[in-house]
C-alpha cells in the first residue's frame, strides 16, 4: 500500500483536564523524512501530546492536521483507528496471545491472509527477527519485543510514527544497537516520526529536530545544534545538557559585570537583567587566561577531563586540556572563557 506522506501540523493545540492545562498552545510540525525528538521532565505533557496526535484523546483547543485533512479540532475528532498513525509504547504492549508474526500482521487486516503474512515476515526480517517469528511475546527478550513492536507499528505503512520512550525499557547494552537499527529503518521509510525521550543524548544524536516541553508548553523546537547552542530558555538549556546557571546580572549598553569579569552580551539582549549559563567546556584551564580561579578538587577523568574550581564564591567546573598536568588543591590557576559556550537569557 503506497502511503502519501504529508506534514502533520499542530496549531495551538491544547488539552485541559479537570481545569488543568496538560498541553498548552503547542505549535509543532512533523515533516516526512524527519525525526523530531521531544524532551522534558515527567508531567511536562509529552505523552499526552502523543495521544492527541494519535487520536486517543480529543483536543480542548487548537487543531491537528494531516496534509489537507483535519484530524482534530474542538468540534470533531477523527477516531484513532482511522488515522493510520503508528505508536510504539514504552512497555511494548504486544498482544500476549499472538505470535510475533501475528502481532505484526494485526494491522494488516485489509490484506488477504497470505499477503499479510508475507509482509509481516519481511518486516521481522528487516529487524533481524525471522528466527523468532512464531515465538510468543513472553518468550522473547526485551529487545526482541521492542523490535516486534516497531515492526508492528511500521508494517501497515503508517502516515506517522510516534514513539513513547521506546528504548528506556531496554537494558543499556542492548539499547544502542536496537536504537540504531530501528531509527535507521524509520529513516528509510521516510515516515514523519516523533520520539519522546528523557535522554538528551538520544535526542541530540539521532533527531533532526529537538523540541523541549515544560508545563504543557512547547518551549523551543530547532535543529539539535541550534537548540544546544542557542536555547531560548534556561529550561531548554538544562534539558539538552548540563549547564551552570548564574544570575541575574544588570545589563547596560551591551555590557554586563559578571563574576567572571566584564563581558559583552549578544545584540539580542536588551538593557535590563540577564541570566548567564555556562555549558560544559565554557571554562578551560589556560595559562594565558584572564580569569583567576582556585583549584578545589582532583581532576575527573573522562572524554574530557574536568576539574572543579572556584571563582570568587562560585563553584564551577573547568576543562583540562593537559591530562597529565599536576594540579594542587588550593593552587591558583588561570581560566579562559569560550564565549560560544555562553548562554544568555533575558529575564
Amino acid at each position, binding site marked *: 500500500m503506497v502511503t502519501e506522506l504529508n506534514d502533520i501540523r499542530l496549531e495551538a493545540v491544547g488539552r485541559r483536564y479537570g481545569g488543568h492545562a496538560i498541553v498548552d498552545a503547542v505549535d509543532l510540525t512533523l515533516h516526512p523524512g524527519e525525526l523530531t525528538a521531544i524532551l522534558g521532565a515527567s508531567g511536562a505533557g509529552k505523552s499526552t501530546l502523543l495521544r492527541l496526535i494519535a487520536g486517543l484523546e480529543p483536543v480542548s483547543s487548537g487543531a491537528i492536521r494531516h496534509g489537507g485533512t483535519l484530524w482534530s479540532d474542538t468540534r470533531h475528532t477523527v477516531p*484513532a483507528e482511522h488515522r493510520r498513525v503508528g505508536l510504539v509504547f514504552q512497555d511494548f*504492549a504486544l498482544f*500476549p*496471545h499472538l505470535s510475533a508474526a501475528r502481532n505484526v500482521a494485526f494491522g494488516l*487486516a485489509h490484506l488477504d491472509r497470505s499477503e499479510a503474512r508475507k509482509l509481516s515476515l519481511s518486516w521481522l526480517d528487516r529487524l533481524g527477527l525471522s528466527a523468532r517469528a512464531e515465538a510468543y511475546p*513472553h518468550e522473547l527478550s526485551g529487545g526482541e519485543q521492542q523490535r516486534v513492536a516497531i515492526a*508492528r507499528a511500521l508494517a501497515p505503512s503508517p502516515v506517522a510514527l510516534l514513539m513513547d520512550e521506546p528504548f528506556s525499557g531496554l537494558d543499556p547494552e542492548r539499547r544502542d544497537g536496537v536504537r540504531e537499527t530501528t531509527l535507521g529503518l524509520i529513516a528509510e521509510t521516510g515516515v514523519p516520526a516523533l520520539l519522546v525521550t528523557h535522554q538528551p543524548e538520544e535526542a541530540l544524536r539521532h533527531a533532526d529536530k529537538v523540541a523541549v516541553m515544560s508545563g504543557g508548553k512547547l518551549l523551543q523546537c530547532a535543529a539539535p545544534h541550534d537548540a544546544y547552542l542557542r536555547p531560548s530558555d534556561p529550561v531548554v538549556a538544562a534539558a539538552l545538557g548540563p549547564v551552570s546557571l548564574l544570575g541575574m546580572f544588570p545589563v547596560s549598553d551591551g555590557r554586563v559585570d559578571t563574576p567572571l569579569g566584564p563581558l559583552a552580551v549578544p545584540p539580542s539582549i536588551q538593557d535590563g537583567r540577564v541570566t548567564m549559563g555556562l555549558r560544559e567546556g565554557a571554562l578551560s584551564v589556560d595559562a594565558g587566561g584572564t580569569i583567576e580561579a582556585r583549584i578545589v578538587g582532583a581532576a575527573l577523568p573522562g572524554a574530557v577531563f574536568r576539574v572543579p574550581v572556584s571563582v570568587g564564591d562560585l563553584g564551577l567546573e573547568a576543562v583540562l586540556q593537559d591530562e597529565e598536568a599536576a594540579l594542587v588543591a588550593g593552587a591558583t590557576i588561570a581560566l579562559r572563557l569560550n564565549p560560544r559556550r555562553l548562554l544568555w537569557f533575558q529575564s
Partner: protein
Amino acid sequence: MSEVTGTAASAEDRSSLRLLTHHWRNMPALAAMLVLVLPLMAVVLAALNGGGDGWRNVVETKLFGSTLTTLGLLALSAAMMTLTAVPAAWLVTQYRFPGRGLFEWALILPLAAPAYVLAFAYKDLLNVAGPVQSAVRDLTGLGARDYWFPDIASLPGAAFVLSAALFPYVYLGARSSFVNQSVCTLDAARLLGAGSKRRFLDVALPAARPAIAAGAALALMEVAADYGATSHLGVESLSVALIVNWEGYNDPGPAARLSLVLLTLVFGLFYLERLLRGRAGVQATSSRWQQVKRAPLSRWPALGAMLLCGTLVLLGFILPMARLVWIAVETQIVPDDFTSATRNSLLLAGMGTAACAILAIVTGFAMRRGGQLGRASRFAVSSGYAVPGSVLVLGAFAIIAAAQHVGLIDGRTVVVSLVGLVWVYASRFTAVGANAVDAALARAPASFGHAARSLGAGPVKRIARVELPIALSGLITGTLIMFVEILKELPATLLLQPFDWETLAVRAYNYASDERLASATLPSLLITAVGLVPVIILSRALSLSRPGRH
C-alpha cells in the same frame, strides 16, 4: 483455573514424592489435601464395593440417557452464560451508558439466590397454569392445547434456569480480566485500525479467555452437581439419577458409580480447557496500569447495553424474587418462627467458611508454588468441588461409620454431625477460595517474592509480610462467595444436618418438594436476603477495585 505461566520450578519443587513427604514445609499442604480428598476416596471405595443388581438395571435404563442429559445441560448453559455475561462485562468495564454503575454490581445479585429457588419461581411462572401462559390464553383466546409454549420443565428450561442463577461466575471472571488488562494493548489495537468490535473479539477476549474459562468452569461444575433445580424441573441429569437411584434401590453402590461417571465428565471439561489454551501467554507484557477511560455510547448502542444488562438482572434475580414475594402475599402466608432456622444457617455457614478459608490459603499457596505439590493441590481442590454434595455426604457417612467401628467416636452425636458437615463443606467449596488466592498471587509478579527474598526475608517472613496480604486480599472475595454458597447448599445439609439444626435451605426445599410452594417462599426469600449481604459487600469491593489491585 489459572495457570502458572512459565516460572522456573526450583529444585525443591521438582523433588520426588518421597522428598515431598519428608519436607516439613509441605506438611500443611499435604494435610489440607488429605482433608479435601478423603470423602471422595470413600466414595470411590463404595463404588468399587457396590454394584450388583441395582447397577445392572441402572446401566440398562439410566446411564446413557442421563449422561447425555448432563452433557446437554453443560453445553447449553455454557453457551447461554458466556454469550450473555461476557459482552455484559465488556460493556460495563469499557463504556459509559445510563445505569452502568448500577449494573456493574447488580449483575452479581443472582449469586444470592440458590438455583433451586429460581427453579421454584420459574416453574410457577411459566407452567401451563401459571400467570404467563394464562395471560397468553386470555389475550389470544386460545385453549391450553392450541398453542405451543416452551416448556420450562425440560432440558433447555433447566439450562436456562441454571444459567440465570450461575452467570455471575462468568461475569466476574470476564470482568476481572477486562478491568485488569493493560489499556495499552487496547490502545495499540485501536491505532492498528481495530474498531470496537475487533478490539473486543481479537484482543480483549482472547486475553480474557483463561479468566472467563475459570469462571465458566466453576459455574459448569455447579450445573453438573445441581440436584434441587434440575430435579424440580423434571430433568434427569446424572446428578439427579444418582440420587434417585440411591432412593430407589437403597444401595449406595450405583450412586457412587454414577458419581464417578459424572466426575469423569467434569474433569474432561477441565482438561479440555487447559488443552485449548495451548502455548499462548496471558500475562500482559507490561505492569504499568492506566485507568480505563470509558467511552460513552451513542443512543442505540447505549440502549442495547442497558437492555442486555437489564435483562440479565431481571431474569437472574428481580423476576423470580418478585414472583415469590407475590405468591407469599397472595396466599397470605403467615410467617412462621424462622429465628432458629436462620441462626442454624448462619452458624453452619460461618463454621464452614472458616474451615474453607484456612484450607484455601494453604492450598492456594501450594498451587502457586507449582511443581508436583502444586499439581496435587490443584487436583485435590478441584475434585472436591466437582463431586455433588450428596455424594460427598455419602463419603462422610462412610468415614463416620469407619470411625465408629474402630471406636474413635461414640456415634452420630451433634458434634460428629457438625464436624462431618463442615468437612463436606470444606471438601466442596474450598476450590472457590483456593482459586482466588491462586489468582491473587499470580497477578503479583514473581519479582515481588524475589525482591523480598533478596532483602533478606526468610520464607516465613516473606509469606507473612508479602505473600499473605496479597493472598488475603484475593481471599476476601472468595470467602464471601463461599459463605453464600454454603448457606444455599442443599443435598449435603439435608442428609447430614445435626439434630434440631434445620436450616433455611432444608426448610424451603422440604416445602417446595411437598408442593407447598407458598410455604417455601418465606424461607427462600430469607435465604436470598441473608445471601444478599456478602453479595453487596462484594459488589462494593468490585466498584472500588482499581486495576492492578483487584
